[in-house]
């Protein structure tokens, strides 16, 4: 009975990768969660994500899987576009491709190196800032044979990026070796209305996060309780006994009033007898309370 599974609700902030810590023992070959993200640490409620700087720091991984798992290095490129211009190379992601014994492949240890802006790029970017236009990036949707089916595109208003330098934040949603989506933007807020602000220095401050899908919490199964049989049934709490007052107040109040009425009458009776000695039996009831009260 006590092994009723409790679904632990979990927290997901965008920069933070967390995974379910439910007690459910899945028989499915699950990928090692620790290898997924860069943060890696199982602290689902940590308020601040660990940021990776460019060149990024990856969480140390322990080699703890069978030798069948093999690693290989791969690279894929980031391309950018200013407004509606064509895409041009802007940087390179490099990662280790881990092949699991069951055939699945995942990326780990993502590193990112950003090409610095050329003068031409700076000029274009300044134009974007002036016109409050979009700065767009794209990466291939398949990292092994780019571009896969299509590029995944993301864009942000250029005015969201400049701070000290240019702050950017990538969240790459992966499914095996496929990139589902890349979310690109500033690591913090970008308040509206956006003000024109040129960056002090033209260097990128990049944060990258790799994300994989989480497992959904399972529906709670209360089978033990059912199997518990009589014991369980015995424990079914009878509906809490309501107090006497709660049950019968609607009868008690009128009753109280009647009693009060009777009591006042009874109290009047001796009085009446005292006063009305001259004419006994003339008035059956006592005098009206109104009269007495006067």
């Amino acid at each position: 009975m006590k092994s009723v599974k409790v679904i632990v609700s979990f927290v997901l902030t965008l920069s933070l990768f967390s995974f379910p810590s439910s007690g459910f023992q899945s028989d499915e070959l699950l990928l090692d969660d620790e290898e997924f993200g860069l943060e890696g640490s199982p602290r689902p409620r940590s308020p601040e994500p660990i940021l990776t700087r460019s060149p990024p720091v990856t969480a140390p991984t322990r080699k703890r899987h069978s030798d069948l798992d093999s690693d290989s290095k791969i690279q894929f490129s980031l391309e950018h576009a200013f407004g509606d211009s064509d895409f041009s190379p802007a940087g390179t992601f490099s990662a280790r491709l881990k092949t699991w014994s069951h055939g699945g492949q995942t990326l780990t240890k993502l590193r990112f190196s950003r090409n610095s802006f050329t003068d031409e790029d700076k000029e274009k970017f300044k134009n974007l800032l002036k016109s409050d236009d979009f700065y767009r990036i794209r990466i291939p949707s398949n990292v092994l044979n780019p571009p896969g089916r299509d590029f995944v595109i993301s864009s942000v208003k250029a005015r969201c990026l400049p701070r000290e330098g240019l702050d950017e934040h990538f969240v790459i949603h992966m499914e095996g070796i496929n990139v589902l989506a890349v979310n690109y933007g500033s690591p913090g807020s970008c308040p509206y209305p956006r003000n024109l602000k040129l960056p002090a220095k033209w260097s990128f401050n990049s944060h990258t996060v790799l994300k994989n899908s989480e497992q959904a919490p399972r529906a709670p199964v209360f089978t033990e309780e059912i199997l518990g049989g009589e014991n369980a049934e015995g424990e079914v709490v009878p509906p809490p006994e309501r107090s006497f007052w709660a049950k019968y107040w609607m009868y008690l109040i009128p009753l109280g009033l009647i009693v009060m009425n009777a009591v006042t009458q009874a109290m009047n009776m001796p009085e009446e007898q005292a006063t009305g000695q001259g004419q006994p039996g003339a008035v059956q009831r006592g005098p009206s309370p109104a009269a007495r009260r006067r």
Partner: protein
Amino acid sequence: MAIRSFFVPFLLFALCFNSSLTPVLSLYEDQVGLMDWHQQYIGKVKQAVFSTQKTGRRRVIVSTEENVIASLDLRHGEIFWRHLLGSNDVIDGIDIGLGKYVITLSSGGSILRSWNLPDGQMVWESFLQGPKHSKSLLLVPTNLKIEKDNVIVVFSNGRLHAVSCIDGEVLWNKDFEAESFEVQQVIQPPGSDLIYVVGFAASSQFEMYQINARNGELLKHESETFSSGFFREVSLVSSETVAALDSTGSILLTISFQNGEISFQQTPISNLVEDSSGPAVIIPSSVPGIFAIKTNAITIFIRVIGKGKLEVVETTNHETAVSNALPISEGQQAFALVQHAGSEIHLAVKLAHDWDGNLLKESIKMDQQRGLVHKVFINNYIRTDRSHGFRVLIVMEDHSLLLLQQGAVVWSREDGLASIIDVTASELPVERDGVSVAKVEHNLFEWLKGHMLKLKGTLMLASPEDVAAIQSMRLKSSEKSKMTRDHNGFRKLLIVLTRAGKLFALHTGDGRIVWSHLLRSLHKSEACKSPIGLNMYQWQVPHHHALDENPSVLVISRCGPSSGAPGVLSFVDAYTGKELNSLSLVHAVVQVIPLPYTDSTEQRLHLLIDSDKHAHLYPKSSEALGIFKREFSNIYWYSVEELDGIIKGHALKCKCTGEVADEFCFDTRDLWSVVFPSESEKIIATVTRKSNEVVHTQAKVIADQDVMYKYISRNLLFVATVAPKGSGEIGSVTPEESWLVVYLIDTVTGRILHRVTHHGAQGPVHAVFSENWVVYHYFNLRAHRYEMSVIEIYDQSRADNKDVWKLVLGKHNLTSPISLFSRPEVITKSQSYFFTHSVKAIAVTSTAKGITSKQLLIGTIGDQVLALDKRFLDPRRSVNPTQAEKEEGIIPLTDSLPIIPQSYVTHALRVEGLRGILTVPAKLESTTLVFAHGVDLFFTQLAPSRTYDSLTEDFSYALLLLTIVALVAAIFVTWRLSERKELQDKWR
């Protein structure tokens, strides 16, 4: 003392009064029909068969395009019984066997069923298999018997079956293996034991098989080649002759196969008709000796005389429909011909061998809104003077069904309402002098009488007749069917668009049709061959400064089935049903985006996206353009390419750069894309919030006086994907191969806010999105049960605003504008529960201000609507909630969602073929209006938190008045009594 003793009964009385005010959870029996109505339909009739036996004379059996077989009353058009077959069980043919069984062939000819004619009980069911897919034909010969067994002949799936009419047993069958053989007709000449199967092979060969009807033995097989090929259809002229067209549609062929000898007779159409042009098509009919062809707009009736000689009997350029032949007496067959002429239709019943003489000729005035006659079915009866009388059943373009007899429409059924595409609600006009359409006020005496009756009912003094009178009075309450706006907002117009391209306005009070209009723009025309109605949007909702205008709706339709076909817009007045304007567009309409801006006449701005990804602004006025230009950079939208598994986000770029200058056309650009890997994910459901939903509060106070802020964004999209393998039927994959991934995606930036995988789960997924939560329904393969999950999403960036002092001093960020380009800080909570039913549709109640708690409306597989409190789907439920949580209303966690029988909003009724549920807020905050549609329609009012803001409909004001009067009288009487008493005391 008297006053004090009076107190007691008064108190008791007050208590009774209070308890009678407490609202009820569900409906009482006598409240059925007070606020709800239910209408039964069958859909567009495909085939009708009249029962000829004595007892069944009053009935007609119909099969419809909604896969309904029904038995209708010929006198009134009411439904005796009705069965809705599944959506993949399309009816191919119906007939009556032995005078008491209805035989239906369905599912591409693989299921043959027999139903009892009087009550619709199924008698037997046979599964007919065959080697290959083919046309399916059903033939019930009247006097073909094999060992006293009446026989049904079915050709389906490349096999000819003879089935016993009594028990559905297959007596014999015969395969037609020839690869290219396409069956056209199965003929059983009356009075013989032969069956002819005729058809085409390899498109240029005519094949004839002669089969012994007793044992299925092949007696003869002949084939003849016709070099220029055949054109699909054939028309049966006699039991041994068929008429066909060659592949160019210019030469008529009469093929006779008398005694097994096939002979062709060719007649060029130009020989028969002088000015024929263009290819002809055969109109399928089965009138002996006569067939009809159609070239361009001309219908030509041709008689076959003798050996393949043809004679034109009539050419007409009116729209014409012909019925099948009906044997009326020995050797005589009659048929009905309906022709349109202006606002009238001409009905003629003729004998097959005598074209010029009419048995019957009638002209009937026909409502223009019904369009053309599509089908005619003829039936005869014996008149009082013993002569033959005829009545015809006609199916109109708007899918309605009418019975014509003695030159009048006896009854009509609006069966177009069985196939609703889209629904929207419209307000009624405000009550002003001369506005009220229906005068239904009655005089004071009746009012008083009604209230006295009600009072009697309340005091339980009413006799059974009185009770009946009260009930009928309540049901007929004139208040609810008035044509003006009411204070509570219960009276509205439901505007529905049907598949036939007809708009109906239904009154929410009693469900009657206020107006109906067959859209001209959805009429077939030269420019637009096969228009399809797509959607409906509220174009103009006048309030405040534009109250004099009538509201109007925008109907979007398309010329043809492909998404690249040009679109058609029509604007329809919601009060009168008049088509105000219609525009044939040069571009396609792939997506319609109602923008949250209106111009000075309250016309809503709409952005139409075409197939070339250009955006077009409507209405095309400079004022609209001005408003649009101001918000130009704040307009974002998304598109879902389900086949490719790509979701894209778009924004506007600049004016169109085409050769034609169009200032209302804009180029677009892609901002983001999400590409689902095609080998592992396939999109099966996308859901967004309703654009007009009102959220009362952003904050949610939880048990320990803490506050959580809902993440309320209009730009959230729920997407569900499944493994491509698992997109089939439930049970077709193992749990290991199947998974369901759900996403919450921000549609402005393309951010994936939440992504979670359900392993071992499978679609179909039904979901509903409201406020900050989404509820979705799917199948759990591991648990072998349906499951429902809830995801709630909360905003963490505002979570610090808990300090009262911060709020007082204004140091909070609650009023600062939100930009979606900021990195969102959200948390999600989710939980899953088992649910017993599979689901056809999910909706959520919506109220005027969003204060009232929500209920999920679940359309169950049994075609009912179940109301489930949202509190059951609260991710904060736990097994043992704390006292504080209990007070907040959190229900202890259970593994499955309860189904309380009283919470079916459809109570005892069924909305057959349920497809959609629409909720419309009433003006009264506690109440929401619910409209469920499928083949049937159902409407009711719901109060998810009970009607806390009004007295119930049947509240007796008379009783209240009487009580007050009695109280006042009692006060006076007792006062007088006490006065007198006092006086007596003083005199003592």
